[in-house]
């Protein structure tokens, strides 16, 4: 049995589901940020796998490259928010950050 796009897609959907569940279930802002990274990585797997299927151009890998760059930017800003939240509330629990709710 050889490996094709389908296997990578299946893996990516499992990883994405894991990330989504983590983001929704955990209340720790740090772990939620990591879950977002998981989801972004799952998408990257799809990009790269499809690019391997159509290898004449590098469009998929280029997109994956940009996703990595954006993920880095997002992590930087997200962690800055974590620190800011910690200063304000002395915790990183997202349920406690509800000042703008309703």
């Amino acid at each position, binding site marked *: 049995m050889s490996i094709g*796009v389908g296997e990578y897609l299946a893996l990516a959907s499992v990883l994405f589901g894991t990330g989504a569940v983590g*983001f*929704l*279930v955990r209340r720790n802002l740090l772990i939620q940020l990591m879950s977002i990274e998981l989801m972004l990585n799952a998408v990257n797997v799809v990009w790269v796998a499809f690019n391997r299927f159509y290898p004449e151009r590098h469009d998929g890998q280029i997109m994956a490259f940009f996703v990595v760059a954006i993920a880095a930017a997002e992590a930087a800003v997200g962690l800055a928010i974590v620190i800011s939240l910690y200063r304000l509330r002395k915790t990183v629990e997202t349920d406690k950050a509800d000042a703008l709710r*309703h």
Partner: protein
Amino acid sequence: MLEQIFDNFAVERMLLWIVLLPLAGAVVNGLFGRFADRQMVGLVGVGTIGLSFFLAVVAFLRLLDMQPEGDAEFVPLQYSFYEWFSIHLRGRAVPIDIAFVFDALSGVMTLVVTGIGLLIHIYSLGYMSHDRSFARFFAYLNLFSASMLVLVLAGNLPVMFIGWEGVGLCSYLLIGFWYETPAYAAAGRKAFVVNRIGDFGVLIGMFILVAVAGSFDFASINHSSYSGAFTLAGWEAGTLATVACLFIFLGCTGKSAQIPLYVWLPDAMAGPTPVSALIHAATMVTAGVYLCCRLSPVFVQSPVAMSVVAVVGTLTALVAATIAVAQREMKKILAYSTVSQLGFMFAAVGVGAFAAGFFHVFTHAFFKACLFLGAGSVMHAVGAHGDADIFKLGGLRSILPRTHITFLLSCCAIAGVPMFSGFFSKDEILLGAAQLGVASDAAFLSPSIGWFVFGGLAIAATLTAFYMFRLYFLTFTGEYRSAGASDGHGSEAHGSGEHGYDASPHESPASMTGPLVVLGVGAVCVGWLGLPHLLPFTGAHLPHVWGEWLKPALAHVEFTPAGGDPLTAVNIAFIAGVSAMAVGIGLAYSMYANKSSDPIASGAPASLYSFLQDKWRVDELYAAVVLRPVKGLARICAWIDQTFVDVLLTKVTSGLVTLSSFILTRAQTGVMHAYGFVMALGVAGLMLWFWSPHPDVMPVVKGQNVEFTAGRGLGYEYRWDLNADGTFEVPSGEHASSTFGSKTFGSETSASHRYTPDDFRGFILVAAAILGEDIEIPLSEHAVVLDPEVLGPDWQVSGDAALPPAVRVEGNEVVIRPNSAAVYARGKLVSEKEVRLPAGSRLRIGQVPMRIAPVVQATLEVRNAFGNVARETVDVTIDVAAPAGARAEVVR
């Protein structure tokens, strides 16, 4: 050398610039004028129209050069810039080009519009110099010039209609130019609304003409009107021409202020005086006459329409002249005079004297523009705003010498003093009517129409001379009646109310008197272009320059005054014209020279005088007959609106919105998992969509070949059964990309096939629709009588056929039983009981062209990467060439 330049210059292309220059001026002044100083605005405004005038003169000289020798067909300057759009009419595309035609008719109008327009632009520099909205005024004025030039130069009806609407818009904008005064804004609205009624007529007339003549071009319409191609579904050509012409004439009564739609023009004097001169005297209001002349070959097909035009024109001339006798304000008198003179022009058109009517358009443009500008000069001098009461003026002869002399010349012209321009044109009109009257065996119009027009116009001419000189004597002779006015406000606006005017009037600046002088000279001289062909009493012949010019552009009604020699009519017309002038001026002199009171007011019965002064109370009549019912209806509608619609719209709708928002806000829990839940559902839905493939076949028919294209998708592979025989031909062996069991799929998304009669699976009768999509009628083995509703009215030729044809399929052929309809196939009328036609044959049922089209079938199977297969079968109507000898004569 000049000629050389002309020869090397594409005059035709210049026609576009004649229009575009004023338009550019309008855009520049409209967008940037408010930031520029007045000199710049004036330069742009006057410069563009000036250049346009220059180009018009060049084009006109070229046109004179082109007059053909002998009997050669005259070809005017014309240029088609591009195809604007096209409509689909009886299976044929009718293009509508942005095309301009410059012949004698449009050439003269172009010269008038640009030439008089230029003078009035220059005049406005002085007249409007103190106005706040100087740039806006020039932008509107330039826009008007551009629209009017589109109107006159247009080579077809839709382009003319652009100009027609454009001048209407500019008229509205300029009447309401001082929109701060509610009454002026209301006058603008009135003009616009009344004109809408007329525009509706023009549109209907236009649609009838294109349906009948199959073209929008003036040339083609005119040609078809007398070449016998004027037909529509069994109607007679004369009836069609009558209906079309009456609708067109309805439009003309709106634009050119004839009964019953003339009521807007007197109110239009609310606009600045140069506007009254340019739009509401010299150019726009003559558009109706111009259109009638342009379509004159169609009009002469319909004696009924001509009679209506003649009678309406005569009545308008009379009614307006009687009203003018009793008015007190300068511009009001001139406005009614304009209405009356337009009536003269239409009366001329109605008796078939198109050249005479158009000649009056030309001369009237000069003297009426001069009169209006003179009135403007007087108002400027005495500081009147809006309008000037002539009973508070007087004795201005010595104060405003230049204005006075030009005003007098123009009064002489309009009154018809011999050798002035108005004399010649009015004489031609009277002559036209008299010729019709003396022609005892005229087959075209009844002589009584001629005598009615002649009598009416003679009375109107007398009244014209009378009221014009009443105006002149009261304004310029005697004492200045506002000299002792206590009001010292200078030129502040105070209307014609209780107070008098400026105590010490002054002559207007040169920018105003200059155009007056030019127009005054014109008012005297331009008539000499149309010296009478036949001199009264002597019977001597003169060359008729004007008539020769216009000959190629107009329809000619040949009068054969069989009862006597043509000199009779000439003599009658001359005597009537001169005596009307003499009586009118004499009466005015005896009643008003050096007087300050109005003897009519005291002498005539009070009820009659007030009836005339109230303009025959037509506005009141319209208010009672038209406005009141409409207002009542509006009230009912408003009640329905408030009781039902508003409740539905506000209460019910807002209730629904509140309810749905209540439900939707429940969904916004703020709980992250709930959102995730919904998102998962959405993903599941998407997955379902992608689970099975979607073929989406699009066939493109190219005659006998059909090219099928299928939709693309993730990992799609295709196989095609193009001729519905159960085997999949595409992909063939070497192009297959994968094989699943017994099925071979390929990656090509399209396949094409050339169909032969063996592949036909059915037949469809395709009827070319008059407008829009073709009609497809499926056929079967069982004979079907075609539905008359589907065929439309054209399937009957004579209107008495009772039963449409029956059609059925037999083997590879279609059998048509004509029943009582006229069916043409194989180039001739089918006289047999039945006719058998193969696929691809053309035929015609009555006026409806049809073809027999075969239907083929193709099947596509698509497999996606999940291994799922979907199948789609499409029926395609293809277009095969008719077999030799089967091609029928296609309609026209």
